[in-house]
């Protein structure tokens, strides 16, 4: 049996983390969660991951900063990073793309579309 895809979700909303955890765990993913960019970097420093899903607006370190730091490092620089956000502006989307995001998903998320996107980028 193949190993479950490991996902780190990064979101400052406890309710959104709960929704994401439910949606992804019930679809067979191995889910870990962080509540902002700083917590995510601390977790990534000592853990392996296949896909990162991050919010944009978060305290301490936002999603843009997280993507830039992951891409600028060595350990996870090639990992797919999906942005999951309530933002819908083209400017923010372009900024995420320039920072190195792999994809952009608009909240409220649709579980089937989210799962399909994760499977596509996870290889």
């Amino acid at each position, binding site marked *: 049996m193949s190993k479950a895809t490991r996902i780190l979700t990064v979101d400052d909303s406890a309710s959104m983390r709960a929704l994401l955890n439910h949606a992804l765990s019930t679809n067979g993913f191995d889910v870990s969660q962080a509540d902002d960019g700083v917590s995510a970097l601390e977790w990534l420093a000592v853990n392996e991951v296949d896909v990162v899903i991050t919010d944009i607006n978060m305290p301490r370190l936002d999603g843009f900063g997280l993507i830039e730091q992951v891409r600028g490092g060595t350990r996870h620089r090639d990992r797919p990073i999906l942005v999951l956000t309530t933002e819908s502006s083209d400017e923010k989307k372009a900024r995420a793309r320039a920072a190195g995001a792999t994809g952009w998903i608009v909240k409220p998320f*649709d579980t089937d579309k989210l799962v399909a*996107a994760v499977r596509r980028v996870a290889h």
Partner: protein
Amino acid sequence: MAVDLSPPNVTRLTVLQGQFKVSAGPKVELSTVLGSCVATCLYDPVVELGGMNHFLLPEPPASHNRGEVDVHYGVYLMEMLINEMLAYGARKDRLRAHLYGGANIRSGMQQIGTANAEFARGFLLRERIELVREDLGGVSARRVDFRPASGQVRCRAVASSDAPEVTPQPVFRPAPRGEVELF
């Protein structure tokens, strides 16, 4: 006849069911009328910015159709309101919240108002956002007028016929959100 007691030159914006609005305008007033729905008013006193949402139901039921979403749920409208506030310079640890609504106006219906009120209180607790005032429950509709730049709120009872009708279950529609774009 209703008398408008608002000062002159105030721009009143109505926050309808399933909506949220954020403003720092000193002459802006966000208004809504609530029955079993709940409105959250958030305010950051440092940047003098506020916002209001108006939700019909707490969270999607576990049985909901996974291919469809509804933005009328509190869990989405809470997050969208908070994110919009943060995008305009607010900080989550400075946010102060007011909660209004959650009445159970029609005795024969499910206690949607109570469920909405409990969800809103629990959400703020989980997110560690300070609840400074609430006027929830009861059997009367409410009108809420919120000045987002000053944080001032006025809440008063109004005739229940003024409150918008709420169906026990939201009307699901094809997802307007959740779109995926891979770069």
